[in-house]
């Protein structure tokens, strides 16, 4: 079954960029990544799915039901963590969580306690006294306490320290192993890579590609950056697989795809000061892979 299915979903937001003809299919039990640079339309898509804003044209279904017509019914089984968390300032954490739980038909007390434990949250504090990271934790707990069948996360890890991120990702994997479908939007390739099976790439409001994560990783791009003691000949890098070559004084940056040995031999011939070989970030992928 398809948990999320959009059909030519379009949203124009006045002068701001919206989304155009987005076709997205997320199957049940999938851990689905949604990546693109900031402002590409990830949040707009998600807000349309949650009928916070309405589509200009096209349609979207969640659990096979139209998101506009059956919005409230669908949300019974959705957990949502927005990118920026804002809660009622004058409330204590536990009041907010209880308020959140009061919207659902089931008893959420037990799961709430577990999640508070896992996320290491002090529920007696007032929300406006919390740091950004702790507010994010409140967001995670309120989004998961009703054991939703679909979890939608918009840039979830900002503000969380690496340890907490790890806990959170483990939590998501655990939910996923119970059959929960997860849609994770991010502009950080790394976090999508760690979690997701499939990924949709959105750029300037359009889905440009949908790939299995394993295929994307196979693209084998590496980013090289090196500095040498002596000036480097540009012709040295005239080789298949090198792209985006930039030379400045004695430093060189480029992307490389292909047999890693061939490029390493060339690099080895240089009198090196420093050398970095990195995974490309999303920016690079967009610049070199999707152009």
């Amino acid at each position, binding site marked *: 079954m398809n948990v999320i299915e959009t059909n030519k979903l379009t949203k124009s937001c006045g002068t701001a960029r919206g989304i155009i003809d987005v076709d997205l299919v997320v199957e049940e039990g999938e851990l689905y990544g949604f990546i693109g640079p900031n402002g590409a339309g990830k949040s707009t898509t998600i*807000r349309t799915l*949650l*009928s*916070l*804003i*309405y589509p200009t044209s096209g349609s979207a279904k969640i659990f096979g039901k139209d998101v506009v017509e059956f*919005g*409230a*019914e*669908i*949300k*019974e089984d*959705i957990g*949502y963590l*927005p990118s*920026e968390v*804002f*809660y*009622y*300032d*004058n409330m204590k954490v536990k009041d907010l969580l209880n*308020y*959140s739980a*009061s*919207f*659902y038909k089931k008893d959420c007390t037990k799961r709430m306690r577990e999640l508070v434990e896992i996320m290491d949250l002090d529920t007696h504090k007032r929300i406006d006294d919390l740091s950004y990271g702790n507010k994010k934790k409140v967001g995670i707990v*309120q989004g998961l306490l009703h054991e939703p069948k679909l979890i939608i996360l918009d840039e979830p890890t900002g503000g969380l320290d690496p340890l907490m991120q790890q806990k959170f990702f483990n939590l998501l994997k655990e939910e996923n192993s119970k059959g929960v479908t997860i849609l994770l939007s991010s502009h950080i390739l790394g976090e999508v890579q760690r979690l997701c099976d499939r990924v949709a790439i959105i750029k300037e409001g359009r889905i440009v590609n949908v790939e299995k994560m394993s295929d994307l990783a196979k693209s084998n791009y590496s980013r090289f950056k090196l500095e040498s003691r002596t000036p480097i000949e540009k012709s040295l890098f005239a080789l298949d697989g090198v792209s985006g070559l930039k030379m400045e004084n004695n430093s060189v940056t480029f992307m490389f795809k292909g047999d890693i040995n061939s490029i390493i031999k060339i690099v080895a011939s240089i009198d090196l000061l420093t050398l970095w070989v990195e995974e490309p970030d999303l920016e690079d992928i967009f610049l070199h892979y999707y152009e």
Partner: protein
Amino acid sequence: MNIVLRELKAHRKSLIAWSVGMVFLILAGMTKYSGFANSGQSANDLFKGLPGLAAAFGIESVDLTQAIGFYSVLFLYILVMTAIHGSLLGAEIISKEEQEKTAEFLFSKPVTRTQVVTSKLFAALVNLLALNLVTLVASVIMVGAYNTGESVTPVILLLMVGLFFVQLIFLSIGIAAAGISKKPKLAAPVATGLLLAAFFLSLWLDITKKYPGLKYLTPFKYFEGRVIINHNSLDPLYVAISLGIVAVMLLAAYLRYNSRDLSV
């Protein structure tokens, strides 16, 4: 129900503040009356000599030496105060979710927009009633304390019914402003702006006595203290107009809030 309770809790402090303000207004106003009462007929004569001033204060055809007559002047300010309360409450209770960016939290829960507006409307009505009751009790006690003739409680009760209609009108205007506008920050200024316009129109009508037809445009003319006291009844036409305004405002708010994008 959870939203109603949340809103009641959120507005508790503000309701207490408004109630204290109201009691103070009535207390201070009626304390001034004792000065008028002692001066006897001379106060009435003074204002008769200055009809423009009397009109501006809304004290024509009022016997200022009677406690209830004096109260009818004060009633205009009570109307204005509850109108401000109502319009701000209506605008704020709807727009705050968008303004404080909690709309993403609230509307990702299994609730429809209609349910949210209805819950908030209900909580707001409880607030209006509470302020109305406080006004009633304070008025009965304070006017009763100075009253020398027959009991004024029945006519004050009638005034409070009129007051409630005005509260409802301005609440619904506030709710409509917040429900319709995609800019949540505009809701309160628009609602209070309309209120001020209505108030000044009412003052202008009192002073100039021109264009009597315009009185239908300002709710402050619907339930004037001296008219209700003199006739001992509410004008059914104004009751009907009030209910009409409330119905139109709420309908517009519901329809638009249901169909528009939330400002997130």
